[in-house]
């Protein structure tokens, strides 16, 4: 009878360990996985990076889709453009920015840079 009780204690302990481990794993992987952006100051203009948690997933030194090395003229424009990309990702769409996405949002291109 005593060893049967021992058996049940062992089983309960074992199951709670497994459960605990799986919960720990779950929180570890789902932690801080939201997309967010950071504006990058490039001296003669601005770029942005899209982050997921601590990880850079898109680094955009130049205005996406445009030829050459055109930087964003203002911090605000870089931030706004990064916001468009995040909105697309969160809507489950491709993060591609089209020329129309930028002109619709009054992002100036082909400027002095």
């Amino acid at each position, binding site marked *: 009878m005593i060893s049967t009780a021992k058996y049940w204690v062992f*089983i309960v302990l074992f199951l709670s360990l497994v459960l605990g481990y799986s919960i720990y794993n779950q929180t570890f992987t789902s932690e801080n996985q939201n997309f967010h952006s950071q504006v990058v100051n490039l001296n003669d203009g601005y770029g942005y990076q899209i982050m997921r948690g601590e*990880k850079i997933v*898109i680094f955009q030194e130049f205005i996406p889709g445009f*030829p*050459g090395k055109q930087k964003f003229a203002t911090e605000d424009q870089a931030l706004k453009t990064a916001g468009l990309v995040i909105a697309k990702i969160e809507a489950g769409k491709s993060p*591609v920015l089209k020329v129309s996405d930028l002109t619709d949002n009054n992002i100036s291109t082909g400027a002095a840079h």
Partner: protein
Amino acid sequence: MNKRKWYVYKITGMLIMAMVISSCSSEDEDDDLGNWVDKSVFDGSARSSISGFTINNVGYMGVGYDGDDYLSSFWAYDIEGDYWSQKADFPGVARNAAVGFEVDGVGYIGSGYDGVDELTDFYRYNTVSNTWTEIAPLPTARRNAVGFGVNGFGYVGTGYDGENDRKDFWKYNPANDTWTELVGFGGNKRRSATTFTINEQVYLGTGVSNGIYLDDFWVFDPTTESWTKKLDLDEEDEYAIQRSNAVGFTVNGYGYIACGELSGATNTVWEYDPILDEWEQKTSFEGATRQDAIAFSNGSRVFIGMGRTGTLYLDDLDEFFPQDEYEEED
């Protein structure tokens, strides 16, 4: 009471054994070498039949088809930093099934299909200035061709012209912006073949024509511009290399043919030893089975991603370690 205790121990023992067996068997059933690591913290831009090239530690990919639209956007994957950047849009009409290759640090994309016509126009991409320039068009239109850069020249051959599969090859000279026909490919006409380059020797195989998956395998020596036939892809009974729409790449002196189409998308991977002229099967691609994917390789590391399985267009990227033991958990 003793009998009950005995049952309890018996059941416990069986449970433990079942757990041990189930946790081991998943690792033991596959003896092939090669490990896959999922890099997709972020999923890129889903598309198939894309074109691209790898220059230094950056993989470039663009154009393609996403199930709704032919695409012209163009992306760079930084191998060291593990992040993407959207680069200058491809300037030609949006297309898929184009060829992409690198010659002396410059990228090239051209030919392909825009949903109506097979195309001839060709463009070069300057990675430093992030700009595209149109170059001389390929003399005959085609899609699903092969393209490779070697020894200072670009080469494009095989493919489908809208009516027929092709076997002709063309050589591009960047110095005078001209294409000249290259004779001497002894293989059959085909579309959706694969190449990889080891030590300046270009290996070509797979592809399909009139529903037949081709089994011949060739090596091109760019110094003599001659083709030599190698061991057939079905020479050994266990070989199952024939397919179309695969990716080819090189890592540390070995060539690889991975994924592709063989009456449906496949995920098998084969390794070619150029010294022995022999093939060995590796661990199959870990993500969804796929065709029309892309591989970025800098010679020592390789990443495979995008493509499609049926009508599902994929955007994930996996790194392949050909000589590592397979681990499920990464």
